[in-house]
């Protein structure tokens, strides 16, 4: 089971996830995330904006979720996307994938 919600605060879209982001759960949410991010495409923005995935409450991520992150950073443009509050284990997962810098994981 995974929960997520969105907040739009001063040109920043916060996506907060909680639970286990395994392949199935990620597939269930990916369309919604994609939909939400459409408005945050680099092309559609005149002002500065950013997208933040807060995964403080996430204890597992599948590669499907990393793909969602990659898609998101492609959509928002590098520098406008970040993954916040990764647990040490999940941070290591992004490190091993070699994507911690590109996805701005902390």
């Amino acid at each position, binding site marked *: 089971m995974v929960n997520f919600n969105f907040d739009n605060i001063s040109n920043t879209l916060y996506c907060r996830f909680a639970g286990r982001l395994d392949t199935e759960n990620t597939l269930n949410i990916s369309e919604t995330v994609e939909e939400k991010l459409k408005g945050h495409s680099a092309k559609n923005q005149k002002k500065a904006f950013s997208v933040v995935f807060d995964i403080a409450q996430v204890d597992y991520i599948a590669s499907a979720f990393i793909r969602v992150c990659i898609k998101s950073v492609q959509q928002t443009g590098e520098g406008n996307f970040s993954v916040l509050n*990764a*647990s*040490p*284990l999940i*941070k*290591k997962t992004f*490190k091993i994938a070699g994507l911690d810098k590109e996805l701005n994981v*902390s």
Partner: protein
Amino acid sequence: MNNIQDMADELMLNATMAAGEFQQLDQSSTDKIVENIFKAGLNNRVKLARLAQEETGIGVWQHKVLKNVLATQMVFENIKNEKTVGVIKKDDISGIVEIAQPLGPVFAVIPVTNPTSTILFKILISMKTRNPVIISPPRNAINCCKETVNICYEAALAAGAPEDCIQIIEHGSRELTHAIMSHPHLALTLATGGTGLVHAAYSSGNPAIGVGPGNVPVFIDKSADIPFAIENIISSKTFDNGTVCASEQSIIVEKAISDIVRKEFEKQHCYFIDEMEIKKLEDYAVLKEKGTMNPEIVGKPASFIAEKAGINIPEGTKILMARLNGVGTEYPLSVEILAPVLAYYECENYEAAIKTCIDLNFLGGIGHTAAIYANDEERIMEFSKLMNAGRVVVNTPSSLGAVGGLFNTLYTSLTLGCGTGGKNITTENISAHHLINIQRVCRRKKNVQWFQFDLTKYIDENIDADNILYNYYKNY
């Protein structure tokens, strides 16, 4: 002899002839040679250490004496009772007999930071396994390397070793190194050195055992005995002026204990440089274009480095401490520096501290060594699982801890495997058992389950794996 290939061929011919003779020796003759070399090396520990320090200008000769002791006495203790000739294991139940065969000629590349000790170590493990060895010394340590080889070779011959069982390249070049590494008669390169050298060894087409670079994070947990931790860190980081690749590179603490830790470092004669001084040290200690340490500072004392960087430090300063706010190329002092310089990180909480350790571990030190000071078993294990390190040393000076033999029961080694993260095949401390081919003589032992199983079931595609397994193990 001018032609590089001729030189390589000559060295290899000598080595292959020695290999042929060597493989006729039994265990006791082999052990006699090893013991003689060990004693000769140990007897000359001080002379060789002084020579190495004088010639290279790197490190502290007294500490190099200890390195020579590790490379002889401790390595000998590890290997003296190991079976490395003929039948080394026999298991009547499995029906398998293991026979040790030598590899053949070994090419041993020697680093400038530990020249004499690495030679002693590599010669001992090669002789123990009846492999002739060709030593490739670094350019600026040729004399001490030649002296070490002469001492070992004389001792080997005196104990009945084959002629040319130990050779040294006196006039080396990149081309000759390559010609030997890729020579069809070479069995293995033992590559202890920089990334370029190790990569060349792995690309040669012959087997190689290499090492990886280190960037050792040291986490001091709030459960640690702080004065003890600092004392150990200082003794380790100042050992031979920080030349051991497993020496501490960064200290990571939680904010809650940072004041105590800083005061303790200061009390024990370490000096925290300010932001301006950090800039000066970065400019001197790290090569901007490469983002790697300036070779000039390797194995130099803190006073030398501070003077060169234009920093005034109190007399008697042991280590220069640089408080950093991040990890990566924007923070040049967060990379590996083989000298008494330590990066210092004060993190908001435990989780942030561990994440900083992961960042440092992955910044050029994957697979090497990580260290933790703690008295909380859960945290020790959590830290260990999160690090990608062949060795996680606990409440131990990391330089001598990783090398093994003094603070733990790891094999004493001057070649530390770093696993695939460091582009190596193993995470182990390399020793004699890595230098034999194990031949397995397998007696017929009928697999009863297989022979009683109805093999036609495999042909029937309607029979699934569960069904097959049920029938395979039925009545067992």
